[in-house]
């Protein structure tokens, strides 16, 4: 909070200084201020480094653990760097066909994301751009907001029982449908905010210029919101990539097992190697890190849209 007001107060002080002090005196004061400024900057940066450390250290530690030998693992106190790095855990994890899990996760999360957008974009468009009765739109949007809050475990049991009655447990397409459906409300809610940020004029101009509604959406609206759309897609993908509870109920075999379940599977019961768990955890975090650093701008926008839009 000091930092927020900092600049303004600083200029204020400077103004007072320049009007009341002598020339030499003023230089001294300015130098002191500069030092204070540097000190403040240093402080802020140090705190931020600490925060970054706090954020990243578990990931470093897990990656480290994945290459430690059993002896290193048993060493007290824990070694900060491996003395005898081994890739056994990584070999094991790939022998356990974690690649298949990754492919499953990619397929399920990818398709679910695409389908979710295919369902949600028209709905958000209709809710913001077409002349439906306001009351109706209000009810739909409020409902969507509530559903976005629904804890997945609450719908997991009924959906599981429904799924088992229909005999569609343990199918990739079931997961895809469920992920699509579970995220639709959230996606509509967020997309609605995005659409509301684009002035309706531009689309109307396209209509006036002789475009169809669909054409206006395709040629004008979608290109305009593409960055947001992209970040929402990334967000949905990450949700799906991480989804755990539904998968817990609906995954029965290697052919559907997604990464989070596979990782939990590595938590040893009669197994010996923390390294394997660590390796699995590292694999799961890699795409997240990649996404965070390559798509930073998109991501920050996307993550804040739903509520800040």
């Amino acid at each position, binding site marked *: 909070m000091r930092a927020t007001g900092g600049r303004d107060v600083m200029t204020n002080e400077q103004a007072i200084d320049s009007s009341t002090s002598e020339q030499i005196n003023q230089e001294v004061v300015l130098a002191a201020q500069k030092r204070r400024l540097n000190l403040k900057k240093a402080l802020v940066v140090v705190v931020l480094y600490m925060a970054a450390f706090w*954020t990243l250290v578990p990931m470093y530690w897990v990656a480290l653990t994945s290459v430690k030998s059993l002896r290193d693992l048993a060493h007290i106190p*824990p070694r900060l760097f491996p003395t005898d790095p081994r890739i056994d855990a990584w070999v094991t994890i790939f022998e356990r066909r974690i690649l298949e899990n990754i492919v499953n996760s990619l397929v399920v999360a990818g398709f679910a994301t695409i389908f979710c957008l295919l369902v949600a974009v028209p709905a958000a468009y209709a809710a913001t751009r077409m002349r*439906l009765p306001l009351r109706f739109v209000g009810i*739909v949007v409020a409902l969507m907001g509530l559903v976005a809050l629904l804890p997945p475990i609450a719908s997991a049991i*009924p959906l599981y029982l429904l799924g088992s009655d229909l005999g569609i447990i343990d199918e990739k397409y079931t997961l895809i449908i469920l992920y699509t459906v579970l995220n639709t409300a959230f996606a509509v809610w967020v997309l609605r905010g995005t659409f509301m940020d684009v002035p309706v004029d531009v689309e109307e101009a396209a209509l006036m210029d002789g475009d169809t509604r669909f054409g206006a959406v395709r040629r004008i609206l979608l290109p305009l919101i593409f960055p947001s759309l992209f970040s929402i897609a990334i967000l949905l993908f990450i949700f799906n*990539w991480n989804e755990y509870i539904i998968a817990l109920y609906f995954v029965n075999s290697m052919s559907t097992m997604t990464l989070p379940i596979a990782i939990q599977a590595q938590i040893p019961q009669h197994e010996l190697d923390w390294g394997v768990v660590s390796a699995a955890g590292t694999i799961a975090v890699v795409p997240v890190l990649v996404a*965070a650093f390559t798509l930073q701008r998109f991501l920050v926008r996307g993550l804040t849209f739903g*509520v800040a839009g």
Partner: protein
Amino acid sequence: MSVPQDISPMSGADAHRAHVQPPAREGIWAEIFRYRDNRVALALIVPSLLALILVQLYPILYTGWLILTNEKGVFIGLANLTRLTSDTIFRGALIFSLKMAIVVVPVSLLLGLGLALLIRSEYAGRKAIWISILIIPLMVSEIVAGTMWKIMYHPTLGLVNVPLTLLGLEPIIWLMKANTAFIALCIVEVWRISPLAFLLLYAGLNQVPRDIYEAAAVDGATRWRAFWDMTIPYIRPMFSIATILLFVWSTRTIGTIAATTAGGPGRATWNLSWYIYGMSFQRLKPHYASAAVIVMLLMTYIAGAIFVKYLWVERKQR
């Protein structure tokens, strides 16, 4: 001095008004179906509504039916709910959920606010990079977060105890005792969800116009005054939203518990989600578990109602 330029009546043409009536109020559905345009719009919304019904309406109705029957499908009225009231395990789980929310939500909010203010200050260099680092935990799945922290807390593998030992303190076996396990889980949850608070509050701060600080400074407000009088009122709606979202997130967590304590020691770290999962899948009583689901739903929806209300107010203000 009066300036009597606005003598009335100005409308001047009341004469025309007589023969035009406002359209008769028709039902929402009649209004929707009357125009082709609206029918198209409805067709666009229907898939999402179907999704809504599938994840929302159907499960709630089904849960309602499950509650009224026992595991063999026999109707037993409200027996599942009354049984819940005397179920000490359930009560423990409910209390744990709330207890954790009470600790995690304020700590995350403060942490998030502090970081948001730091990032917004001009001292923070490349904001985009800092932000993308700080929000990484948000994108890590619960189970992975739990697994990572389980390793961090591990008596021999873990890093958490290293600084304690360096300071000459007794290492703490975090997940062994009920109270330290609680603290440990709270730390995991703060790690996992405080970035959400950070992000929301940062977005909120960005809505505060910079010039109000200049105005406040000109008016002679101190930095603290400016913060309390300007910043806080501006980010208040976002603050409320963040509070409720954090509450919902922290109460629904299951993966972190599954991966760290697995509910132990004893049942000290069972929360509602964990209880429901165990009851439906290990103890094989999905019908009874549904009663707990209803409690959780109520909790979420009370929070959710407030959430929507705040958001609604905010939208109207614009």
